């Protein structure tokens, strides 16, 4: 029983796999929000269970979209993503990044450190700071913003995939993830407004009819929250790095 509890609790804390660009407002009554807690992932067994769960979900994400096997771009995305992961409290995870072979604009994070960005999102990005903002999706699995997924009790990976592909996450979880991503990139030294800039851009792309994920994003509210965070933290109007040249040297998709 104790073991069952430990597995379930670790999965609950870790399963915030997810839609990044999309906002969920799934209204299922069974999904309740948990308060923020200081979770710790210090037992190796729990971490292994997280990784095994994340691998299964990652295999389904790749199964749905296909992986874009471009060595140079994947190396670059991993170098940046892994570098950002150094500014988190999950040193025990081997973060891995890959590009999904679809023009739809989206990104996903599975537990255990498996992070994905679509080719469509890469095409929309204009500098390394923006890419950092999207990859800082790792915030999903480090941040402690938890959505209480009772479905996970019974459906496990399939339920997580359903949330990832169909239902989306709750609005507050998207907002928390944006906040964490912004904190990560700022700490690493990138332009704190990069994620906000990116969301503004793809929200206008959406108006032009481009595909943005499959759930219903509420970009305006997310952007407003990030911008408020920037003001509250006195991060507006200062000069920060966007690292445009290195991005374009490494990502040539257009």
């Amino acid at each position, binding site marked *: *029983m104790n*073991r*069952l*509890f*430990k*597995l379930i*609790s670790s999965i609950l804390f870790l399963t915030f796999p997810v839609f990044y660009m999309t906002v969920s407002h799934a209204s299922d009554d069974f999904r309740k929000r*948990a*308060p923020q*807690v*200081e979770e710790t992932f*210090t037992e*190796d*067994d729990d971490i*292994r*269970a997280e*990784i*095994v*769960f994340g*691998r*299964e979900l990652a*295999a*389904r994400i*790749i*199964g749905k979209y296909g992986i874009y096997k471009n060595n140079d771009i994947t*190396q670059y995305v*991993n*170098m*940046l993503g*892994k*570098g950002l992961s*150094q*500014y*988190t*409290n*999950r*040193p*025990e*995870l*081997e973060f891995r990044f890959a590009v999904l072979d679809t023009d739809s604009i989206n990104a996903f994070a599975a537990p255990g450190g*498996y992070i994905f960005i679509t080719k469509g999102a890469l095409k929309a990005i204009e500098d390394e700071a923006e890419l950092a903002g999207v990859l800082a999706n790792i*915030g999903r699995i*480090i*941040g402690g913003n938890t959505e209480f997924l009772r479905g996970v*009790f019974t*459906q*496990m*990976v*399939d339920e997580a*995939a359903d949330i990832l592909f169909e239902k989306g996450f709750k609005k507050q979880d998207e907002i928390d993830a944006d906040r964490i991503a912004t*904190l*990560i990139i700022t*700490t690493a*030294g*990138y332009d704190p407004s990069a994620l906000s800039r990116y969301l503004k851009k793809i929200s206008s792309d959406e108006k032009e009819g481009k595909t943005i994920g499959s759930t219903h994003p509420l970009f305006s509210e997310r952007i407003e929250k990030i911008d408020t965070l920037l003001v*509250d*933290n*006195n991060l507006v109007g200062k000069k920060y*790095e966007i*690292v445009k040249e290195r991005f374009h040297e490494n990502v040539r998709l257009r």
Partner: protein
Amino acid sequence: MTKNLWNLLNSTISIFMLLFLPSAVLAGDLYVQSIKARILSSPSLGSRIVVEANRGEVLKELEKEGNWFKVSYKESTGWVSRLLVGPKPPSGKVSVLEETEEKLEKGSRRRASAFATAAAARGLAEERARISDQLKVDYDGLEWMEKINISDEKAAMFIIKGVGK
């Protein structure tokens, strides 16, 4: 059936305990988990950097405010983001890939077995049944992704070089 209900009830109670217990934990030592952790003059990202601590170093927690800890470090006092610290020393990498490489074959046997590896370790072999074939899976793509190997140090240097700090 009764056993399942009992399991669910117990798990639910345990999870609620888990959710609320941490608030009762006393303030104490915090270990830097990130490569570096800036200790700032106020709980605000844009505030002045007082000092920087390195991964593994201990900070004394003085108080907590939202997502920030007020800490003392060496002779200094300031605020650190809770995303950069943890209550235990940072650990080395944890991996499941070695065991799957050794014991398992490709395809569906691997899928079932990979999950069983962790599940069995936790007395949870019955959970295997919950992984279904509803969705297409691509383990070759996953393995391609997992072959990329970049050290923490190299990646950290890449960022530093990029942002010029």
